[in-house]
């Protein structure tokens, strides 16, 4: 018998407005796995990700974190297990990069506790690994889109949960930082027995860095499995409603839009 999955969904039905995102979805995400969620605009990738994080209520079905039903856990307990990178952030007041990263320790501190030297060390380490240590005193509003994206990723790395849920993590990032960030996250997953689920538009990032893929076709139709089994020209053309041509590079299979 295998150990409890980090996250498991049973017969999960998710709907938003008139859109059916998934119908009876059974996912099992184990330590060491990297998952990509692919699909067209508006099929509900973000909604599904939010549902897995307990931020959106499913229509039916259950989600378990480490064998415990999500619905029985407090927000704080969930935040110690699951970290979420959102697609957009809506800060109203100025906040510097270091404080933003340090926010990742929030789930572990009680109301009267202050961040410790260790928390500060974790935050600084996250900034270094994302190559924004030099910006630690800068206000988020003065950063470029890609720098701001990495500042929010730093919050997540500082939070350091067993499961990462990332909503289009490579948005605004230049090519170097797209690859660098994914390498960083994947190494973290492989070396520390964590797992990662990312919604993506770049099929090739999924092909290169993710060992599992979940395709959302819309109307509740889904397909998931190991990347080599699922990612092929036929499935992608049906998924994206656009012809995709397979090519081979030294990094493995690639897909080029037709």
């Amino acid at each position, binding site marked *: 018998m295998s150990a409890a999955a980090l996250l498991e969904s049973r017969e999960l039905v998710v709907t938003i407005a008139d859109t059916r995102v998934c119908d009876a979805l059974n996912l099992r995400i184990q330590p060491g796995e990297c998952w990509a969620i692919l699909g067209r605009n508006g099929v509900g990738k973000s909604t599904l990700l939010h549902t897995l994080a307990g931020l959106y209520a499913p229509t039916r079905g259950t989600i378990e974190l480490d064998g415990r039903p999500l619905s029985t856990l407090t927000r704080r307990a969930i935040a110690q297990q699951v970290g979420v990178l959102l697609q957009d952030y*809506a800060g109203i007041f100025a906040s510097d990069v*270091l404080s*933003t990263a340090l*926010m990742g320790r*929030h789930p572990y501190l009680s109301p*009267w506790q202050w961040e410790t030297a260790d928390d500060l060390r974790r935050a600084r380490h996250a900034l270094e690994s994302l190559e924004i240590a030099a910006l630690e005193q800068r206000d988020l509003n003065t950063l470029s889109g890609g720098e701001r994206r990495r500042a929010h990723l730093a919050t997540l790395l500082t939070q350091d949960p067993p499961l990462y849920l990332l909503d289009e993590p490579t948005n605004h990032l230049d090519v170097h930082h797209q690859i660098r960030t994914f390498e960083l996250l994947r190494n973290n997953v492989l070396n520390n027995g964590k797992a990662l689920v990312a919604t993506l538009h770049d099929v090739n990032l999924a092909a290169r860095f993710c060992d599992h893929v979940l395709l959302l076709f819309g109307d509740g139709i889904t397909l998931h499995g190991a990347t080599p089994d699922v990612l092929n020209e036929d499935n992608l053309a049906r998924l994206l409603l656009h012809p995709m041509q397979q090519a081979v590079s030294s990094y493995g299979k690639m897909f080029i839009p037709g």
Partner: protein
Amino acid sequence: MSRHAMSTVATLILITPALLFGSLLIGAVPVSLADLMHALSLSPTDSSPIVELRLPRVLGAFAIGGCLALAGALMQVLVRNPLADPYILGVSGGAACAALIGLWIGFGGLLLRGMAFGGALCAMLLVFAVARGRGAWSPVRLLLTGVVLATGWGALISLILALAPDTHLRSMLFWLMGDFSYLESVHVEWTALIVGLVLALLNARDLNVLAHGDVQAAALGVRTDRLRVVIYLLTSLLAALAVTAVGSVGFVGLVAPHLARMLTGNDHRYLLIAAVLLGGNLLVVADTIARSIVAPLQLPVGVITALLGIPLFLYLLRRNPT
């Protein structure tokens, strides 16, 4: 940043007693420092006019300024709008309507304060019930509901002023602009300020995260619904208490939190303390001017806070275009 914020808070703490002392010396009857020290050292049974009249007024002004600044800082996070003040959701409108009716009937003292507090509570519960509806408690919905109801209270106030007999108009207008002459005992205000500040500080890190957005806060383990209700109740009660004590004193609740943000940054653990100290001191200074500049006449303190506050605020807006 935190080092700078800490030294700012320390400086404000050091300035406060000096300002309070200074304010006790100035007034219709100037007092020397020696007289003041003598008066403060007397036993409660044979106290002097300074201790009986001026001390509660100065201490009251500080507590109310602090309450308004704290309520303003919290409200700005609650409705996600940096231009929010404690009255934006109509708490002061409800209090004013009830108080004006009280003045019309001929109430005074505790009865009038009771009326005003009842009115504030009504306004608060009305916004709470309407804005909550069935769905989620979104900041925009809360803000719109509050602003619309506040406009309604404004119309009612105009109606009362239009119908009220001339003999009552002066006291009504004074009440509306903020009148400190009713301040006698300040225990309630100080208790509210201290309890409110402690409660707010216990939620300060939650507020920091909430300022980054509701979903982000929830993702980092904050129970945003509960937090919003706590802040709403705390903010409304602080504003209700302040309005009940002295009428609607404007601008302290808007300017003090912004001054605090500029001086300490946006970490609420420093910001809230700085806002309370700034708001308290600002109102002490304004009230000192109001009661001394054309003594023995007294100006409504709301006029002074607005005259000090408007240029200061416009200056801040020009300096920070965002």
